């Protein structure tokens, strides 16, 4: 793994690249361009950037209107205010009519850190995957965030993309990104561990720790939570017998529940969900907050070991 880059940073940079090849792409923000990193697009294409002020609900519906004119709006804010505050706008004005709006929210999860529980969305994946027809994507690193940003423009329909504030490792391997197709990053027979977002790199680190003890786990990057790669989930669950999910999200409603639903009635296996246990986050340095909620490599390794 090389330098650390936040997925929001990669998203912001990718938008500029995308803007140069697709003039239908327009970007909206709600006074957070310098945090969601849409500021790069704003600088490059000021005539295609629309600041909506601190009014997220209005922004989502302006996005809906822009999409009906044949444009491809990328609406950005923090996950709390996008998936949270604007939930019903996304549900009724974007997803219900199947409008081609890309909702790209940064500062998801407890790794937001210092801003505290009020700003740490741990329900956004759940909220978004509940909506009929919504596609939900959580890139694991900067490279994947860039590819996903491009893939969204080619995809017809509403998409929610979850991005992180925290700079995290970038994988050296440049694997392909296809919406709905999981990436197996490591093969191992003892457990199938499905992770998303910045928990993928933590899980890979956990895999190395476990390997030192002779435990081999498969690590699968579930960058698309919906539609879920059910074939991959059932195949690896059958192969390993032990299934673990790891996410920087509530254990209610997120990746863990999606994987569990795919396996229920299909595969008989042991199952462990690792995530935020039905509680709000809190202030602290991101690394400390992740540790507080049991989301670091050594803690993940320990829990996987317990379950075997």
């Amino acid at each position, binding site marked *: 793994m090389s330098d650390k880059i936040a997925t929001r940073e990669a998203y912001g940079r990718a938008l500029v690249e995308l803007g140069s090849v697709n003039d239908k792409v*327009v970007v909206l923000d709600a006074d957070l361009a310098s945090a969601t990193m849409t500021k790069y697009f704003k600088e490059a294409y000021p005539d295609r950037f629309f600041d909506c002020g601190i009014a997220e609900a*209005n922004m989502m*519906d*302006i996005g809906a*209107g*822009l999409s009906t*004119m044949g444009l491809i*709006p990328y609406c950005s804010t923090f996950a709390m205010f996008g998936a949270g505050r604007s939930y019903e*706008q996304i549900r*009724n004005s974007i997803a219900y009519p199947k409008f081609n709006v890309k909702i790209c929210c940064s500062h998801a999860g407890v790794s937001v850190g210092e801003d505290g529980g009020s700003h740490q969305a741990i329900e956004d994946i759940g909220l978004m995957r509940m909506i009929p027809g919504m596609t939900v994507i959580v890139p694991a690193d900067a490279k994947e965030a860039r590819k996903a940003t491009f893939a969204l423009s080619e995809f017809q329909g509403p998409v929610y993309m979850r991005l992180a504030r925290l700079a995290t490792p970038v994988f050296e391997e440049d694997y392909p990104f296809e919406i709905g197709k999981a990436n197996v990053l490591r093969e191992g027979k003892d457990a199938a561990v499905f992770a998303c977002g910045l928990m993928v790199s933590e899980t890979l680190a956990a895999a190395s720790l476990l390997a030192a003890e002779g435990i081999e786990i498969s690590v699968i990057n579930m960058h698309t939570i919906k539609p879920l790669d059910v074939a991959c989930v059932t195949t690896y669950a059958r192969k390993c017998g032990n299934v673990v999910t790891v996410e920087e999200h509530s254990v209610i409603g997120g990746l863990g529940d999606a994987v569990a639903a795919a396996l229920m009635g299909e595969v008989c296996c042991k199952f462990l969900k690792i995530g935020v246990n039905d509680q709000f986050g809190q202030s602290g340095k991101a690394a400390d907050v992740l540790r507080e909620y049991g989301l670091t490599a050594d803690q993940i390794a320990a829990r996987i070991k317990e379950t075997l």
Partner: protein
Amino acid sequence: MNTAELSKVCRQVRRDIINMTANAGSGHPGGSLSAVELLTSVFYTQMRVDPQNPKDPDRDRFVLSKGHAAPCYYAVLAEKGFIDRSEFQHFRQLHSILQGHPDAKKVPGVDASTGSLGQGCSIAVGMALGAKHLKKDTRVYVLLGDGECQEGQVWEAFMAAAHYKLDNLIVMIDNNGLQIDGRNDDVMSLGDLCAKMKAFGFDVFEVMDGNDLTSVLAALNAPVSVGKPKCILAHTVKGKGVSFMENQAGWHGKAPNEEQRQQALKELED
């Protein structure tokens, strides 16, 4: 089309509203009847649309932000030839294109799915902004209820309309003064709506009788100021045209029974 002919269309639209809601046994006659002149005038005298080509990219747009006035919308769309009148009998029934509130996926001529109050104006702002960005001369019309203006998002949209100088946006407010729980002034007073719209940067045309075609047309035809969105604040009568429904909040979301249907239709005869 002259005013007398338009008036005839309005009466037909009112009869359709009564029949649709009576057939369905539910729906919103009150706020549909108050909006008849506004909606009919826009579709018949303002909008550049082709019922044979409802997705024409160069068409003007209309958003029914007060989506519960769907029966009025459907009746006008049918009169214009976007949909067939035979669909009316299926209003609010399983598998119908005519949902309780407008569904853009299902109805030709419907550009936005609405019904959850407060959202339509923002969608219209997006359309108007998109048209400006694409250098199209598209005009965007949006019809709001007065009670709907209690939703905070409506004011976010108004703010954005002025900020982006959307002089291609025409906001119409069906100010019938009533909402489900009673008078606006008792439920949550909107205060001086006219002054508020002006303060939000709109060119405001107040129509004292929003059920009078001549007044509505004059406001719609009035030239707009460059760089300012237009607002038509139309004072209307909820339940207009049916004596026992007029100015009765109770007819917001209640369908007429058979006897009431017949009485209403009699009052609405040509």
